[in-house]
């Protein structure tokens, strides 16, 4: 029966004979339907329709070997473990048919047969156990657990931690922060020496008359905050221009106005 069941699956493709095989044939050929050689043996034994303890192990071995032969004739590949079992059964068969010599240390045919029977019975027992297990009232099938579990609700309370150091650091930090935000540096205009020199060159131009520096710079000296930097940079630049021989400087009295003029080009 199981053979036919598996026949309906993709394993049908294995047949190279398109003809509808006989029912017996189907079972034998469908090696893929068995879960290993022991399963196949158990199935064959079952068909002896007797208690496993009463089966003819010799007949079983012969049936198995015949089965494998049939399958191989049909050029169906047989998995290695089926062939290993076939070899073992051939050995078993020979042990059962040949009387044991007294000097023989090998296990007797009867012992080998008993071993096979044991394994078959054990497999069958496990199968029966499995089905008994599955027939029990199972959780979620016949027996049910609490549908609306009321889980343990965990209320987390926070235990806050802070050290005195943290506290003081926080306080000092924000007091200092308050101070620095009040301080905004005054933006000053600073004349660079280069800037002052450029401006002086432009203002003096080609004037060979003595003109005071302050009157040259009058436009820039309006803002009191900028006077010092403008005067300082301009004075320093004018000294540089004198050194280069481009202008003359003259001061008539201490703290008096500073006059400057272009040096005559023909007197370098």
């Amino acid at each position, binding site marked *: 029966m199981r053979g036919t069941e598996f026949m309906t699956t993709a394993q049908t493709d294995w047949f190279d004979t398109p003809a509808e095989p006989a029912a017996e044939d189907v079972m034998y050929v469908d090696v893929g339907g068995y879960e290993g050689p022991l399963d196949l043996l158990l199935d064959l034994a079952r068909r002896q329709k007797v208690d496993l303890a009463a089966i003819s192990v010799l007949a079983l071995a012969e049936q198995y070997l015949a089965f494998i032969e049939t399958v191989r004739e049909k050029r169906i590949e047989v998995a290695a473990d089926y062939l290993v079992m076939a070899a073992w059964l051939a050995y078993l068969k020979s042990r059962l048919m040949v009387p044991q010599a007294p000097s023989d240390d090998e296990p007797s045919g009867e012992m080998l047969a008993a071993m096979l029977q044991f394994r078959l019975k054990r497999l069958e027992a496990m199968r029966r156990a499995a089905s008994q297990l599955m027939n029990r009232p199972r959780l979620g099938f016949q027996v*049910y657990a609490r*549908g609306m579990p009321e889980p343990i609700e*965990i209320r987390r309370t926070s235990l806050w931690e802070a050290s*005195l150091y943290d*506290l003081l650091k926080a306080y000092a930090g924000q007091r200092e922060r308050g101070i620095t935000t009040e301080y905004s540096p005054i933006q000053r205009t600073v004349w660079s020496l280069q800037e002052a020199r450029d401006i002086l060159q432009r203002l003096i131009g080609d004037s060979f008359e003595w003109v005071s520096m302050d009157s040259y710079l009058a436009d820039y000296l309006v803002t009191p905050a900028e006077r010092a930097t403008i005067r300082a940079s301009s004075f320093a630049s004018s000294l540089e221009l004198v050194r280069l021989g481009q202008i003359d400087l003259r001061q008539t009295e201490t703290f008096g106005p500073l006059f400057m003029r272009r040096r005559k080009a023909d007197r370098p």
Partner: protein
Amino acid sequence: MSGLSDDDRSEVLERNLRVLEALLFASSEPLDANSLLTYLGEGANIGELLLTLQSRYATRGVNLVQRADKWAFRTAEDLGFLLRRDEQENRPLSRAALETLSIIAYHQPATRAEIEEVRGVATGKGTLDLLMEAGWIRMRGRRRTPGRPVTYGTTDAFLDHFGLETLGDLPGLDELKGSGLLSGRLPPNLQIPLPFDDAALRDDEDPLDPDDLGTDEDQD
């Protein structure tokens, strides 16, 4: 049903109650009477059965409760504590909370506006709530100024937590400078108040009203 003997009737009743027990136990949500009825024998009075079941479980650790027109087993209310567990978690205080706490410590009694003035940012009510929950600050009273803002001060638990005997143990300006917590370059007019240590209200504080929830009228 009228043809049944008392024994039979009681057997039918018990069977129906068992079915209801099983259904209500296993259901993942409360069940209404009508859908329960379909599982019972013919002629069953579902309303009566549910009330019977309810009274049977009334004194048990689980009760049959009605929620709208649906029914469910629920743990008895007085045993609810069994299903709750408290867990404590140690967590560091946020910087905002630390700053707020330190301002209250030094400047108390301090109103929220005063705290914000020192911090330069608005202080969330959550920060004050957290500090009150931690048991470190308390509402002292209300300042006698327009809006009557709540004044905050520290608690004994605050002293306890930070290992201070009195608020006077909080370091002053020189000590903060000496410990390097304050840098040297400070304007000469910077002052650090001497924390006010008295539990009694100050002259400019009114007591809180008995039912005062501490809400500043002009805020929140």
